[in-house]
């Protein structure tokens, strides 16, 4: 079963469309849900880091997510949902993230040749060495030949570069487009808004 966190403001209906079209069994996540390790929590998000974390804390969902991961369950974060997987963000100093992936989010470096916010379609750059785990974005994920839709101002900086499963090119170097650590997966871009390529990628991740 897929459980979707429905923030007061988020891209819920975009994800709902994907889940409905692909006939996934899903429901909105509630703090009282009894989850099993076979369940996947989908964590979307639009807005600021503090608003997202405030909501997760106030509703008790942050504890539930942490317990689910500890029990071996899977969490997939998208956009702000991905950023909240890390420990902090310079967007909201002093606000703790879920801390499931060591590291923090920082504003995308300013550059004359790269507008911020980063809005639009971009290619993914895959790490040269793909680690042997299910969440890695190998060729079967369909990411190599298509572009994906980004809309963000902050970017994840995991402590370990091994946590970066895909990147995008920035004038300062490669920046994280997707992160993963064991059963925790995050996408900075929006696969649910990236047309058929995005749907194929989500199929790969949620299969």
């Amino acid at each position, binding site marked *: 079963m897929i459980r979707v966190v429905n923030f007061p*403001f988020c891209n819920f209906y975009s994800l709902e469309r994907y889940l409905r079209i692909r006939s996934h069994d899903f429901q909105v996540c509630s703090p009282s849900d009894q989850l099993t390790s076979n369940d996947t929590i989908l964590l979307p998000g639009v807005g600021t880091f503090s608003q997202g974390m405030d909501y997760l804390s106030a509703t008790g969902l942050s504890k539930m997510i942490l317990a689910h991961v500890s029990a071996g369950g899977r969490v997939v974060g998208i956009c702000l949902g991905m950023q909240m997987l890390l420990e902090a963000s310079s967007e909201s100093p002093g606000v703790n993230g879920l801390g499931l992936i060591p590291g923090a989010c920082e504003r995308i470096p300013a550059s004359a040749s790269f507008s911020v916010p980063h809005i639009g379609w971009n290619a993914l750059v895959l790490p040269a060495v793909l680690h042997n785990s299910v969440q890695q974005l190998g060729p079967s994920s369909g990411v190599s030949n298509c572009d994906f839709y980004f809309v963000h101002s902050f970017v994840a900086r995991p402590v370990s570069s091994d946590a970066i499963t895909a990147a995008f090119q920035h004038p300062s170097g490669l920046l994280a487009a997707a992160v993963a650590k064991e059963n925790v997966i995050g996408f900075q871009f929006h696969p649910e808004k990236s047309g058929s390529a995005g749907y194929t990628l989500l199929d790969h991740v949620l299969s």
Partner: protein
Amino acid sequence: MKKRIIPSILLRGGTNVSLSQQFTPWRTVGALAQQLRLHVRRNCDELLIINTDFAGSPQFCCPQRLLSLVRQEVDIPIAYAGGISSATDAATCINAGFDKVYLTSIFLDEVSAVSAIASLIGSQSTGVCLPYRRCRNDTVPYVWDYRAAAIRRDLPLFDALHTAAAGGAGEVLLYDVDRDGTLQGLDIDLLPELEGCRIAIPVLMAGGAGTASDVSAVLRSTIVQGVVAGSIFALTQETPATIRRHCENAGIEMRRP
């Protein structure tokens, strides 16, 4: 960054889709469901719905029929414009399935509201649309207030552009009112000043695209990240794919669908 081709869908009278000329709806070309399907199937990069029924209205409303069609038909980014005047209105749009909102009236009336909206939904989801015109014998473009059908002499376009960026907008759409619906080409005269204005956020242009060459002429600019267009997709043979191909051949980096 890959440059974007963004069809605009002008709604008038519920879910009827119109073309406009100089910011005035003039011809109905179909229904929303059909237009959404067409543009998604043609692999456009984004969509922009401009709801003229509520533009400038004090009471915001996003009709249920519109929302259900967007949720049903669209798997690409889509933005909404028309009567958004508060953070609550903007959050309603985002919750309903839109990725971005564009603001005009509220920007002209109360810039601080743009900051409030960006604080809630994020600047990356907050766009400002600036319709503009030039006065006769004057090369300076000024913002045009569509509600009063009047040029705002107190608001030169580039001042407004900087104000929008400083106010929290994450993207700005510069819309040439005089070229709107004419198919006579986008406003390339704007490019030199745009290149020199040191604006950090993405800038889109609209108004006048009639050929693929018109589009590539402005997308060559490092500042312009996309072109919004309506009539070209209804009145010519061009599609997002043909324009994208032309731009790629011109050396412009475009999305791989």
